[in-house]
């Protein structure tokens, strides 16, 4: 059986950062991704990121992705693309279907799972029609493949994904007929929301989709106001002409591999649902396995990169590649950057959710297993 010191699953912002950190520390790293290109969802993020200078604020996601890839290339990190990890078992064995052909069994001294998250769907009559898609799917189409999925788009959800993708749809030449939000108030950062509003896009709070209608694809959509108990308010239905409905209704961590591997789970609504238990070193209840990025709780690419650095550093340290004092200092610096990213109204909730996971680890003594 082939062996590697550190096997990383997922070459998105978290996995790439983990690979760079672990390889810099001197680990033999293998990075595996099922896609034909590394970068995960970074290359469709054509907007400028938030945060401080250290967090690469003011730089577009797509350029951050290019830099990360360059770093990985300079370190000659081994990368397997078009390769799917189908299972992790016996704590350190990784089953890969390489190049969509060959089955390979690998052994990793440490495994870092950075599989990310997938978009949530919401169900309404007609939700299956072509033209209803994840906002992220539309973002991939416009920014990566340069294809406009529709001319008149309704955005469902006013969080950051909803408003950012709305703006990017406008940039790509679509008309956004509206942004609807089930909650009584808008959910995204003011800067992004304001840009969409200034472009003249109507926002509807306390509104949901009543139905999407059309023969072979969406042709129109009925929206309706809901009361505080989420019941439709009679007489408030509006019909909008739209050929596309984008769903920006949150994400769910992709935890299958971690749970297959036996990592214990915890539930955090703020972080997107079930996530593997982990401590602040990003270590799970299975000693050899670390996690980083959206699998450990849905946040942003900037937090995913820092978590990746943490997982890469701590995995390297646990293998003896970084001395304890050095690991502690560098770990603290990463944690400080993570704390800074988790500040503010939205960030604080995520910080608290993370901390309650860390302390639950400590209480149940899972970290020591």
């Amino acid at each position, binding site marked *: 059986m082939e062996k590697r010191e550190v096997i990383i699953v997922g070459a998105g912002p978290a996995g790439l950062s983990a690979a760079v950190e672990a390889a810099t520390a001197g680990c033999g790293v293998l990075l595996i991704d099922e896609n034909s290109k590394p970068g995960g969802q970074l290359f469709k993020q054509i907007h400028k990121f938030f945060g401080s200078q250290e967090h690469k604020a003011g730089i577009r996601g797509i350029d951050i992705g290019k830099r990360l890839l360059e770093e990985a290339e300079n370190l000659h990190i081994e990368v397997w693309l078009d390769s799917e990890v189908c299972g992790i078992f016996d704590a350190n064995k990784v089953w890969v279907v390489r190049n969509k052909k060959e089955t390979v069994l690998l052994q990793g001294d440490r495994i870092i799972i950075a599989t990310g998250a997938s978009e949530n769907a919401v169900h309404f009559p007609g939700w299956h029609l072509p033209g209803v898609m994840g906002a992220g799917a539309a973002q991939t189409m416009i920014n990566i493949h340069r*294809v406009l999925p529709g001319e008149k788009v309704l955005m469902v959800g006013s969080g950051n994904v909803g408003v950012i993708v709305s703006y990017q749809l406008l940039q790509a030449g679509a008309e956004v007929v509206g942004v609807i939000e089930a909650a009584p108030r808008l959910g995204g950062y003011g800067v992004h929301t304001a840009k969409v509003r200034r472009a003249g896009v109507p926002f509807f709070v306390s509104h949901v989709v009543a139905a999407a209608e059309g023969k072979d694809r969406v042709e129109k959509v009925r929206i309706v106001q809901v009361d505080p108990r989420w019941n439709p308010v009679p007489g408030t239905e509006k019909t909008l002409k739209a050929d596309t409905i984008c769903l920006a209704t949150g994400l769910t961590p992709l935890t299958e591999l971690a749970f297959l591997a036996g990592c214990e789970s915890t539930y955090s609504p703020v972080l997107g649902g079930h996530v593997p238990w982990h401590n602040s070193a990003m270590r799970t209840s299975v000693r050899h396995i670390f996690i980083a990025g959206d699998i450990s709780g849905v946040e942003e690419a900037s937090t995913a990169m820092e978590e990746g650095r943490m997982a890469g550093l701590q995995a390297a340290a646990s293998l003896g590649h970084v001395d304890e004092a050095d690991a502690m200092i560098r770990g603290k610096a990463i944690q400080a950057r993570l704390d800074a990213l988790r500040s503010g109204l939205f960030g604080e909730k995520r910080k608290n959710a993370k901390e309650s996971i860390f302390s639950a680890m400590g209480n149940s003594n899972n970290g020591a297993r």
Partner: protein
Amino acid sequence: MRRIEHHPILGDLAETSEERIPITVDGKTLYARKGEMIAAALMANGISVFRKTEKKKSPRGIFCGIGRCTDCVMIVNGIPNVRTCVTPVEENMIIRTQEGSGEWGDTGGKT
């Protein structure tokens, strides 16, 4: 559904003849950009129905775009259930709208 030729951030789409490759979709020759996913090529050509369901023949298209939901599967070079959002186009690829779970070897008479 169309190509985005101009973009304020990403710039103009320089489409050279070299980058254009032919594919066959339900017997018709269409053109795709080399390296793009099948789903993107179809949408750029105005196609939104990728398959029809087994019982009700209800249309389905792209949904998640990252290879997880399997809503966009089609018969590609005679192989059914190929996820078109994560499968790149190849020259002269034979792509067919899938009905139900699709039939192996269905190339619409082409080889």
